[in-house]
């Protein structure tokens, strides 16, 4: 990794949103002009910011969202395999959050309510295309599927909090989120 950094000194970061709302990504962009400074130190690999489809070897991976289907599992594993440091970002990645509210119902009941019997449903049918990934029985926190190195709570974490965890990592240090910044909502 060291030799690589000598050639290309910028830290490679990949980001993705699994079962999330992209709100964490939006919050990340709230860094506004500070993004310019950040981009002098980092380059983005797979991310909604770049449209790169697969994660290559990276220093840091940021995961937004929980794990709700088979594709989420595969993406998450790809990130884990390629990112030296993997960070669970936001409430959905950490505990499933709002998508996990479906965990209190059986999958069949959920699909039935949403696509067949719910109020205002027209042309009722449960979507079933081979392109659609199979749903897991529940929405799981990412830490139940792969090893996670750091957690950044919040719904979403603020841009400041993103920087608070990224800046020490870019400097090769261990990040510590200050207690006053800690929030789960």
């Amino acid at each position, binding site marked *: 990794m060291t030799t690589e950094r000598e050639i290309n000194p910028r830290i490679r970061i990949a980001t993705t949103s699994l079962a999330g709302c992209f709100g964490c990504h939006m919050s990340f962009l709230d860094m506004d002009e500070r993004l310019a400074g950040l981009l002098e130190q980092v380059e983005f690999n797979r991310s909604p910011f770049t449209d790169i489809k697969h994660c290559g070897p990276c220093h840091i991976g940021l995961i937004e969202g929980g794990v709700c289907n088979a594709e989420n599992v595969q993406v998450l594993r790809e990130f884990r395999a390629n990112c030296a440091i993997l960070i669970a970002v936001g409430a959905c990645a950490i505990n499933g959050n709002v998508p996990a509210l479906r965990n209190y119902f059986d999958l069949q009941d959920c699909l039935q309510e949403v696509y067949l019997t719910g109020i205002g449903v027209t042309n009722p049918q449960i979507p079933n295309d081979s392109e659609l990934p199979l749903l897991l029985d529940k929405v799981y926190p990412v830490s139940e599927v792969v090893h996670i190195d750091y957690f950044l709570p919040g*719904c979403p974490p603020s841009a400041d909090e993103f920087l608070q965890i990224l800046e020490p990592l870019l400097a090769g240090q261990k990040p510590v989120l200050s207690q006053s910044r800690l929030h*789960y909502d």
Partner: protein
Amino acid sequence: MQASQNTITIDGREIPFTAGQTIMDAALAAEVYIPHLCHYPGLPPSGNCRLCVVEIGNRSAAACITQAAAGQEIRNNTSELNAARKALTQMLFVEGNHICPSCEKTGNCKLQAMGYYLGMLEDHFPYFYQRRETDASHPDILLDRSRCILCDLCVRASREVDGKNVFAIAGRGTEAHLIVNSPTGKLADSTMETTDLAATICPVGAILIKEQGYRVPIGQRIYDQHTIRDIGLQEHATKKQEEK
């Protein structure tokens, strides 16, 4: 020697106590914070959350149910005990449904505030995904059992202060859950009112008064601005009753 007749020491600080006081009573009176969730000054203690476990010599004891005794040398604010408290808080998070962004109580929730106080970044343990019944029958009060941490505060508040005995805890082990003392088991058929202490003492979002949820915006709520320590040092059941 005479000074130690009626004092205990917590983390090296000497604290006076009067006969019959628990370690928790004496500590709170001296503005020493011992983390707790199931204790509320003015109500009889229960000792179920175990966050207030302190070390006295080589034994562990829950401060809220252990009598202060002259000369006790107590360790409270240690990294080991706070790590255990964090683990207990995380246990409560995974046992129930504690999804803060979707809960009206966020910002005013003691479980959440305890997480903040103890530097909890994630829930650590595997989730239980328990399904527990919600009771929305009462016109003014909602009971969401999936958020209940079985702290027994509403049970005690209803019995001791409201004089109603609306709640009880039934079931064993992880099946334990809050039940309502009414013929149908529904809150609507109980004598519960919004002015009851039991309606407002819930530390989490299990008992909520309806149509109040978002009067105070997120970000301006109690634990958005104060730590649970600050609040915990001020609380008293009689004070809470007078507020209404």
